[in-house]
């Protein structure tokens, strides 16, 4: 009964992160992340794919549903939004302000929560399970706390049903010992794992269509935040110093000549690991 469903508005949070295929660095006096060689965090592609699948199952953009890609960060961060638009998001938002540099999880959450509030009537905030740079997984939970919304994290499947004029979400989560079914009303903050789907690639049509899509640039003032609340100034944590880990010294490599299992055990015995 697609015609009776209300329009869905989904915000997908996307992050511009250093490409893990290259060596990644901390730089500057404050040991912040060096963002040259950055890409759309591959874990966010799963969130975007989940958003697109949810709306495509209900008639997509033609039925009034919308997926907005949201990022924050310096000028280059807009590339994460552009990639999301090529993949299929309908419009984009870039919170851009030099004062955001060096934001920790709390500052990032504060800024993103303010963007979500600014967008208004968002039904679903979708994120990846972690950023591939900070890797803390703190932001989805902090966003939910700040927005006063239910959180459903690490979803490996998602379903939506219209119910009593609102939306109800059912998700599956897997942990070591249990598989859980979790239910929540919308609006909610949801993070998804890389088990949930197979993200699509941008195709030529998508790349051309993206050029016509709107990216709204917002400043801190637009979303009602002061520079002192974000970035290094507003961070609740600080990195005092950073040391690159010494490279692992080359170990012993042997070729099996019929006794490698025994030589392996000799090595373990030498290392007192038996």
């Amino acid at each position, binding site marked *: 009964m697609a015609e009776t469903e209300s329009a869905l508005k989904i915000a997908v949070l996307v992050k511009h992160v250093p490409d893990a295929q290259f060596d990644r660095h901390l730089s500057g006096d404050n040991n912040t992340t060096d963002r040259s060689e950055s890409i759309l965090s591959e874990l966010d592609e799963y969130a975007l794919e989940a958003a697109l699948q949810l709306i495509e199952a209900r008639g997509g953009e033609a039925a009034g549903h919308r997926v907005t890609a949201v990022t924050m960060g310096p000028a280059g961060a807009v590339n994460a939004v552009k990639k999301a638009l090529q993949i299929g998001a309908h419009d984009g938002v870039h919170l851009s302000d030099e004062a955001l540099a060096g934001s920790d999880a709390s500052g990032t959450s504060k800024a993103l929560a303010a963007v979500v509030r600014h967008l208004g009537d968002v039904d679903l905030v979708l994120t990846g399970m972690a950023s591939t740079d900070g890797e803390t*997984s703190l932001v989805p939970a902090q966003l939910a706390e700040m927005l006063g919304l239910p959180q459903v994290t690490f979803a490996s499947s998602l379903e939506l049903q219209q119910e009593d004029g609102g939306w109800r979400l059912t998700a599956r989560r897997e942990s070591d010992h*249990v598989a859980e079914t979790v239910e929540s009303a919308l609006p*909610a903050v949801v993070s998804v794992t890389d088990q949930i789907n197979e993200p699509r690639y941008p195709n030529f049509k998508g790349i051309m269509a993206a050029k016509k899509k709107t990216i709204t640039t917002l400043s801190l003032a637009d979303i009602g935040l002061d520079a002192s609340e974000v970035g290094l100034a507003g961070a609740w944590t600080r990195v005092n110093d950073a040391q690159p*880990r010494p490279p692992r010294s080359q170990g012993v490599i042997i070729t099996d000549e019929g006794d490698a*299992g025994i030589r392996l055990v000799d090595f373990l015995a030498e290392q007192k690991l038996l």
Partner: protein
Amino acid sequence: MATVLVYLDNPGASLHKTDRELLTLAGTLGEPSVALIGELDSAVAAELGAYGVQTVFQPSDSGLADLLVAGKAAFLAAAAEAANAGALLLGNTFEAKEIAARAGVRLESGVITDAVAIAPDFTVTKSVFAGSYTVNAVVTTGRPIITVKSNSIEVADPTEAGTPEVREIDVPAPTAAARITGRSEKTASGRPSLDEARIVVAGGRGVDGDFSPVEDLADALGGAVGASRAATDAGWIDHSAQIGQTGKTVSPQLYVSAGISGAIQQKAGMQTAKVIVAVNKDPDAPVFEIADFGVVGDLATVLPQATEEIRKRKG
């Protein structure tokens, strides 16, 4: 001395090794107290007393144990205020990190995850970018909230005798929370859990559907079984065994990698292991770049031979 509040989630009838690690660490940093969800078993209470725990905070509403993160975080924040805690310590599971995250918002306090050491001034040592940097970080605002990786602390023998005082805290149930409506337990393997294991033996696509050589070696070594994503995606082993960027991060004393190429996302989960042993048919497999001991060979013969040799030597 400041109170250091340790969060324990449903310890059941006895403390877990990670709980003991947190209590040991808390004892070196200040006076340990505990915020505990779930029933307080008398044996657990006695053990907490032996770790010098003065007070155990519990939610007055036992239903909180079944709630998702929002309720647990609200309880922890309330306990931190009641204890006037100087710092909060939690384990490093995904859920514990989220509880820390939300309690951090409630307490306007900074959160640092993945700690491997904490100095007396609460400077935290952790590694970032999949182990390529070691950083020292501090919480600059509020009560430091720190999640600690397992196996980072040598568990101390509890010495003090004493029974902690139990204090119940009223926590209003959060209005906006998701609800768990179904739950199915997975069968336990009887092996140590990946989070706690000193030894991990992991298999990849090279096991070609048969994990038994990996499992047998793990059992001979008393270790846990892990896997690459290729192996979990193929359905050869449960997804919870996955090691790596989107699986578990482990730092065991010994990591045995068998039939795993060593892609960057796999390395992200294991390269801080003390000793890395790799068995792979391909001499150019990237895993050999980080192996302390590598065997170019077929895991289907090398692993069983090693297992048999270990059994022989152990008698």
